[in-house]
């Protein structure tokens, strides 16, 4: 089976790029070769969802996928919850690619340029300052 979007309104040459006509949004042809099992899954889903065309099917799937990506980009988890409260978290490897950093907890400190200079000077000192009497008493108490 082939999934195919609407025909392009404007044909272009094989290696030629033309600007779309103003006021006439260009439509892109999308074609995919599906394995028989995937073909059956698509037909079944179209029936269940009462979707008539492959274009509408693709459009709805795209909307759902875009939403999922945007949620993971924000670091949000995608969860399904049953009537009894049982929760399942969607783990979809491709989606995890868009939110790897957000999953890592971290502490950020904002530094001014002068603070960084001062910190570098202090941290690179060959010898540290000696402890104050107050510090010695506190640490040895």
């Amino acid at each position, binding site marked *: 089976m082939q999934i195919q979007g609407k025909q392009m309104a404007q044909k272009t040459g094989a290696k030629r790029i033309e600007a779309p006509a103003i006021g006439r949004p260009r439509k892109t042809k999308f074609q995919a070769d599906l394995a028989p099992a995937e073909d059956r899954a698509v037909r079944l889903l179209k029936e269940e969802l009462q979707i008539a065309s492959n274009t509408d099917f693709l459009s709805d799937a795209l909307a759902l996928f875009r939403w999922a990506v945007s949620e993971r980009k924000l670091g949000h988890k995608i969860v399904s919850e049953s009537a009894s409260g049982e929760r399942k978290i969607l783990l979809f490897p491709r989606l995890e690619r868009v939110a790897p950093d957000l999953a890592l907890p971290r*502490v*950020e400190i904002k530094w001014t340029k002068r603070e960084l200079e001062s910190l*570098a*000077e202090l*941290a*690179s000192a060959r010898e540290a300052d000696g402890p104050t009497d107050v*510090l010695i008493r*506190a*640490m040895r108490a």
Partner: protein
Amino acid sequence: MAILIRRLEEHDEVENFDCGDDPLNNYLKRHAWTNQEKISIGVTYVAIDEGAPRVVLGYFTLAMASVPRETFPKKYVRGLPHYDLPLVLMARLAVERRFAGRGLGRALISEALRVSLRAADEVGCRCIVTDAYRDRIGWYARYGFVPIEGAAESGPQKMFLDLRTVRAALGS
């Protein structure tokens, strides 16, 4: 009164904690537990009286942080290791108003420094940094914290303490 300092626990009584500073009060009540147990970005240690072991009398929060090497001005990086600079951030330290002036702050900061030394021994770390309120700069300076120059005049003052200084204070 026997003071004990330990990690914050889920059922500790924090709702009535009042150090006189709303951000410090709110951090303990709203964020400390989540940051410690759920997102693991900072650990809060609380001071309690053994006679009332759930009532928090003071606390501090520690977190690990680092400064990327490439953010330092080139002129100053020569003496630094060829890696990001790891540090302990003492993110909060507060004492319940009713117990101010009784040495609880000293007990908290010395424990914070001991924990920092242990962390440095285990995972490697050069220094401890804190944001001090302007009226507390002198108090931190007594323990050897040095102001990091370049802060805005009105905001908190970043302060630095080399962990070698703390180790020397222990006599080791």
